[in-house]
């Protein structure tokens, strides 16, 4: 059914010339129109069904988080006596307020620094001439082929030897060189006219001033994109945060959730409240900035 609906969609887009293949020529214009309506309806039904399936886990998470603890497995789509008590308890009694703060600290500082470092480096690549520029860029790009899992053991060893275990720095530091972000920003900054930078230099601006007062303001869209993407990455950088912390005061939300799961398997409604605390902020962020998210995440891919 879905395939048929897809074909229909193409036809509508392709224009009027093709519609005849679907309706028999002998039918009246009215019948033809209703056929089209039928197809549009089928299309919408498929779309809504798809959305229901894709979004059901999140709906179920929130519903369960709003249920009374005893009703964790009840089938009510909307709880008859909804309560925010699960949220209150997991935040206050199980330390999630602290974990939330930690997640905010880690994700914000990492996003800020990673974006800053990428912007500085991208500016050099986009607008400066220096030795080994091309070689250096290819060398950086080559690192994108290495899978993240590969780094778990050696990065852990390095962080440990630097004496950084159980610090915010340990969670943030290894991920501050974002090659994909550098690539994204370099492309954007290349479109800034060099004459603009030169005229500012003639006016006596220092290199840093040129960067701050001209390059940064003009690159705001791509800066916002990278900030969001790195924030999102660190918000869910679960495995790394798990292995470099074993002090409760440093747990981030997903790490706290993993520990909570292991200790209180049976507190389902609380667990879902904890999951919601992790998911809702990114959901909201996505809702308001979806274009930046979608473009940023797929841009690198389309270019190969």
């Amino acid at each position, binding site marked *: 059914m*879905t395939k048929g*609906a*897809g*074909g*229909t*969609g*193409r*036809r509508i*887009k*392709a*224009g009027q010339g*093709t519609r005849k293949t679907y309706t028999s020529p002998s039918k009246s214009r009215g019948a033809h129109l209703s056929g089209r309506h039928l197809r549009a309806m089928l*299309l*919408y039904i498929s*779309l809504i069904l*798809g*959305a229901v*399936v*894709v*979004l059901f*886990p999140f709906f*179920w*998470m929130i519903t*369960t988080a709003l249920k009374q603890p005893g009703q964790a*497995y009840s*089938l009510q789509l909307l709880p008859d006596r909804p309560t925010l008590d699960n949220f209150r308890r997991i935040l206050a009694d199980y330390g999630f307020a602290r974990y939330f703060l930690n997640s905010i600290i880690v994700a914000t500082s990492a996003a800020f620094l990673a974006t800053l470092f990428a912007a*500085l*480096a991208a500016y050099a690549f986009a607008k*400066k*001439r220096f030795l080994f520029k091309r070689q*250096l860029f290819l060398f950086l790009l080559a690192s994108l082929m*290495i*899978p*993240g*899992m*590969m*780094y*778990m*053991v*050696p990065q852990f*060893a*390095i962080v440990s030897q630097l004496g950084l275990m159980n610090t915010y720095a340990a969670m943030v*530091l*290894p*991920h501050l*060189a974002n090659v994909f972000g550098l690539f994204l920003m370099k492309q954007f900054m290349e479109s800034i006219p060099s004459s603009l930078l030169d005229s500012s230099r003639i006016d006596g601006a220092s*290199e840093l001033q040129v960067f701050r007062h001209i390059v940064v303001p003009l690159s705001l869209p791509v800066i916002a994109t990278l900030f969001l993407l790195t924030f999102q990455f660190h918000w*869910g950088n679960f495995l790394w945060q*798990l292995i470099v912390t074993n002090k409760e005061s440093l747990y981030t939300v*997903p790490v706290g*959730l993993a520990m909570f799961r292991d200790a209180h398997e049976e507190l389902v409604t609380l667990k879902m409240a904890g999951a919601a605390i992790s*998911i809702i902020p990114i*959901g909201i962020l*996505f809702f308001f900035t*979806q274009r930046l*998210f979608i473009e940023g*995440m*797929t841009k690198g*891919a*389309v270019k190969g």
Partner: protein
Amino acid sequence: MTIKLRENLVAYAFLAPFLVIFLAFLFYPIFYSLYLSFHRVTDLYDVFGAMQFVGLDNFGKMLHDGQFWWSLLMTLYYAGLVIPLGIITSLILALLLNNRLPFRSLFRSAYFMPYVLDMFVVGLVWVLIYSPHFGVLNRLFTLFGIDTFLESGFLGNPYSAMPAVALANVLKGSGFGMVLYLAALSNISPSLYEAAAIDGAGGWQRFRAITFPLLKPITLFLIVIGVITALNAFAEIYAMTEGGPNVEVGGRALGATWVTGYYLFRTFYVSLKLGYAAAISYVLLIFTLIISVINMRLFRTEER
């Protein structure tokens, strides 16, 4: 000469923060990991103080490590589920959305949204949905008289565990492929379809002869990142099955979702076999590079 030197210094000053982090945490680890893979940790209380050089022993051990080979098999199985399922889902969603209709961007966002969320946390929600007896999915199945999964839940049954994990991953991730397919679809000229329609090609024929071939680069790309994702799979397994449930294979108990990424984590974080884990991650790296090279070859022939 001095001007040139100054230019270089300024450029490298802008690059410095990024490069320092890159060299310390993304470049050096590749060699450090190799070094670690030639060693055995002898003292669990001083993991890095007491290391013993063992040459290629870790790699030799891998050859006889049933758990390792099994994990590769399971990774292959996981990839074999996630990749085709993900591509089909992405493609169907993209074809449905490739229409000028009201609320189009709303649906696009809804399908894409789960992609930005944390796999571990989403996995915990799926645990609830898949759970035995009172889980939503089991309730739904009992409506249709299917009680196969009632006792074990979908994740506790060795036959359904991996497909269940794969389904959760596909529903979370297919929005990404969908956006890529949508972009490619919008680049296909409507005149191609009109010409085909004049020649009498039906909907399915047009899809096979025009749409699918023109989407091939995206499909290839999704296959490649699918393989890499499968090699890195960890969070979904940690959240949902922890490698289990066990199955008897040749008198040994092996995990039905025991993928390599998860085995790597266990070797490192639970068994604290640091050197061996480094060796495993090196093998993973080599697999990934081979796949990347094949991918580049495919793309090159594509361009010719």
